């Protein structure tokens, strides 16, 4: 019987005890500790009255249990709070109830928590540090920590904002720390330390309006919207505005969890503790190194206004702290449960049910879509957000289908001003979403876009959306679903073209022979011989042979892959230089001109079987500049970049060599972009908006967003490219703001 588990617990063994008794006691206390740990973790899952009972029962259990390692309890509480920062009220109430009966425990608590807080700051563990500060704030509410000492702590944190030499990111973070605590503890400060609170606010005011230089450059890149109509305030500025409004209503905040209120009479009898602020180190927080970075700035995202909510529900305004609280809670649930879509949806619905007067469902959709569209990248896969939304629509169809439709409509009206990276994600998400609901949509509502210039974002969005919907279903189905006015936006049937049906074409004769031979089950060797002996130029031979293979394999992926695999030796025999490789790619785009998906898959196959090199594929892509405003060629670029990167990692263990493949290819792509952009600019004379440039620049930006970690290593070279092409209209600026962000 081995009940000893790997625990962080220190055994507290009385040396005077007999071994057997000692062993039994150790097992008992271990088991008890595990039970307490489990109950502590479960505290954050409780709701309503059950939550209060659970807190009370657990605090009694802890008080009644002798020989308990208090440090262990605190350690568990800290780890719970680290993953559930919106539940600090629960844990603070628990700790404070114990403190009522056990003053010593309260002492250990404040010392331990402050120590841990400082440690997290020193190690650059920002999220954990913030959680602990929120816990301390709630401990003030629950009467374990004195208001004065908390005020002292916050003041000390704000000292960092006065460090003129420190980088903006560091000063911003400490301002953010202090601001985070205020919604929780602002009211206590207001009631008991009003003057000191005013001083604190004044200091923040000074920092936010004067000391802090507007982070324009690094934020510029993050804007999803290129105009002012859609709110996208920088997060710190937004929180500051929300706090100012909270101040004007005397710090009364009602959405945060405050279980301590249920135990007010008991908690007010407790003796409070003072935070040992005199023990704080002079220099707080980590020095930024290459591995430790202060959190980057980010932008808020709003889709809905109060008027968008149904009449029986209230959606707090953007500058209302309540909006911040709702958003924070939903974000926490998403972070905890995003991998389990059913659990995630359930938890979100439970949260919504706990606030029956508020339009929480709207916030949920807003948070999910906002994160999915955010720049530079979404934290999770698009299909992750999509599957949660589908689950929500499944569980409460009457509400969520409506809200999702509302959100999509808002996004659609703003397409013209949307970052291309976000727009592409919108296409990917919405096509998948529709595929789960039979593509039912009020297509008539969007009919106006059919009358806009073809490259305008709205018709382009619809075009790309249709393409994706067709990939997931089939063309005839989509065609019969949409109104006739959309005809111009529907892609042509994705059928293949085999030009050698025309017997007059040069190469048609060889094509006939090849087809006959392959259909007649001739050996690879003899087919190869046939091709080799033909008296034609190599590139023409390649075109003929490749087209024959593609024609014979036109039924499915399996068919064409089988043929290409079988006759690979013939292709290998034919291909000697990059022009030959290009000929293979030309054949593919000729045969499957109207089928993007198949082009992608075949080009990938050519790369994987090493018939064609990545840089030749890039040449081929940029040799079709008129197609660059569409998504699919960039899909190919992404694919070959990823492949090259993975390939290099496998080929060698030498880190510098591993990156080389990626580095060279990436810079090559950027160079080509600069080239086609400049050429386009020189030839573009029209007075109308240059949408083509919008798409190409936008897709390049998307590429840069998707590979930030890797591109950081080639910042120098990227800057050089920007300098080289300084006359190209918007490219240098795009690269410049990107480099400013990733440093």
């Amino acid at each position, binding site marked *: 019987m081995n009940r000893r588990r790997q625990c962080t617990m220190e055994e507290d063994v009385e040396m005077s005890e007999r071994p057997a008794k000692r062993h039994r006691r150790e097992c008992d206390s271990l088991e008890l500790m595990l039970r307490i740990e489990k109950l502590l973790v479960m505290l954050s899952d409780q709701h309503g009255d059950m939550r209060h009972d659970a807190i009370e029962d657990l605090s009694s259990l802890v008080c009644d249990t002798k020989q308990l390692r208090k440090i262990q309890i605190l350690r568990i509480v800290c780890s719970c709070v680290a993953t559930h920062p919106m539940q600090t009220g629960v844990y603070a109430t628990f700790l404070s109830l114990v403190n009522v009966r056990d003053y010593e425990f309260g002492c250990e608590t404040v010392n331990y928590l402050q120590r841990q807080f400082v440690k997290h700051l020193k190690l650059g563990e920002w999220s954990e540090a913030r959680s602990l500060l929120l816990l301390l704030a709630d401990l003030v509410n629950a009467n374990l920590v004195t208001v004065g000492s908390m005020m002292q702590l916050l003041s000390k944190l704000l000292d960092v904002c006065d460090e003129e030499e420190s980088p903006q990111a560091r000063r911003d973070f400490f301002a953010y720390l202090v601001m985070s605590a205020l919604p929780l503890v602002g009211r206590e400060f207001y009631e008991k330390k009003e003057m000191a609170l005013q001083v604190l606010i004044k200091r923040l005011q000074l920092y936010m309006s004067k000391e802090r230089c507007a982070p324009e450059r690094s934020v510029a890149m993050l804007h999803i919207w290129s105009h002012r109509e859609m709110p996208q305030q920088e997060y710190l500025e937004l929180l500051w505005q929300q706090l100012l409004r909270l101040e004007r209503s005397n710090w009364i905040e009602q959405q945060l969890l405050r279980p301590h209120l249920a135990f007010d009479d008991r908690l007010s009898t407790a003796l409070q503790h003072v935070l040992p602020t005199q023990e704080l180190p002079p220099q707080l927080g980590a020095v930024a190194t290459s591995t430790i970075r202060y959190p980057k700035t980010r932008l808020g995202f709003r889709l809905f206004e109060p008027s968008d909510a149904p009449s029986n529900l209230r959606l707090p305004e953007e500058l209302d702290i309540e909006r911040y609280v709702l958003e924070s809670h939903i974000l926490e649930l998403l972070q905890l449960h995003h991998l389990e879509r059913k659990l995630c949806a359930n938890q979100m619905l439970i949260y919504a049910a706990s606030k029956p007067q508020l339009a929480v469902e709207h916030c949920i959709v807003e948070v999910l879509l906002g994160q999915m569209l955010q720049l530079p990248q979404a934290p999770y896969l698009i*299909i*992750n957000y999509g599957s949660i939304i589908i689950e929500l629509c499944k569980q409460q169809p009457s509400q969520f289908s409506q809200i999702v439709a509302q959100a999509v409509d808002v996004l659609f009206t703003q397409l013209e001003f949307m970052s291309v990276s976000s727009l592409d994600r919108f296409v990917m998400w919405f096509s998948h979403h529709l595929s789960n609901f039979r593509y039912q949509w009020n297509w008539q509502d969007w009919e106006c876009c059919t009358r806009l210039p073809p490259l305008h974002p709205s018709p382009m969005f619809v075009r790309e959306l249709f393409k994706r919907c067709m990939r997931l279903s089939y063309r005839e189905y989509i065609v019969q679903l949409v109104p006739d006015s959309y005809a111009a936006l529907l892609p042509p049937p994705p059928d293949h073209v085999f030009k050698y049906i025309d017997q007059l074409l040069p190469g048609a004769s060889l094509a006939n022979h090849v087809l006959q031979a392959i259909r007649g089950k001739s050996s690879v060797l003899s087919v190869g011989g046939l091709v080799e002996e033909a008296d034609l130029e190599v590139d023409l031979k390649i075109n003929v042979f490749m087209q024959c293979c593609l024609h014979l394999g036109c039924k499915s992926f*399996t068919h064409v892959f089988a043929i290409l695999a079988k006759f690979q030796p013939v292709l290998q025999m034919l291909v000697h230089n990059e022009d030959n490789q290009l000929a293979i790619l030309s054949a593919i785009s000729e045969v499957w001109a109207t089928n993007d998906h198949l082009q992608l898959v075949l080009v990938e196959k050519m790369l994987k079987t090493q018939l064609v090199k990545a840089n030749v594929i890039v040449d081929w892509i940029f040799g079709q500049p008129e197609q660059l405003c569409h998504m699919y060629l960039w899909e190919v670029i992404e694919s070959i970049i990823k492949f090259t990167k993975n390939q290099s990692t496998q080929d060698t263990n030498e880190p510098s060599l591993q990156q080389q493949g990626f580095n060279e290819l990436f810079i090559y792509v950027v160079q080509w972009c600069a080239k086609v952009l400049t050429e386009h600019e020189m030839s573009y004379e029209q007075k109308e908006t240059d949408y083509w440039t919008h798409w190409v620049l936008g897709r390049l930006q998307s590429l840069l967003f998707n590979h930030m970690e890797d591109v950081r290593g080639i910042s120098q070279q990227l800057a050089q490219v920007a300098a080289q092409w300084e006359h190209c209209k918007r490219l240098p600026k795009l690269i410049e703001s990107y480099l400013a962000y990733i440093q």
Partner: protein
Amino acid sequence: MATSIELSSYRDQHFKGSRSEQERSLRDSTTLYVGNLSFYTTEEQIHELFSRCGDVRLIVMGLDKYKKTPCGFCFVEYYTRPEAEAAMRFVNGTRLDDRLIRVDWDAGFIEGRQYGRGKTGGQVRDEYRTDYDAGRGGYGKLLSQKIAPNTDNR
């Protein structure tokens, strides 16, 4: 607590190896079994959906043993385990070609496993089912034989 990536209760009876070996393969696998497909669902559709979770390495369509036509299942293989897990999390129980599909771990494709194991060539489940499913040949095989003996209702 049940997670979306844990093993189901299905074990391949034809697996060459012990139960524990099979389970070990399933836990490391990057291959997925996809079931309840329509007979008309194409590789393109499967590729498009599953590519949303990662880079698809290979798709093998499940075929009727005699007719060599798709019989409603397939294997999807990814390069890495996390990508396959994403498919388990986000695709299993959602729609492909307007049908709710089932995604489950598979120990790995070997030649021969692409064929249905039902007596009449398709999947076993299509032998015995009694509902009418237009995307899967109508009624189950046994039932169709009873209704209209000696006719092929496909």
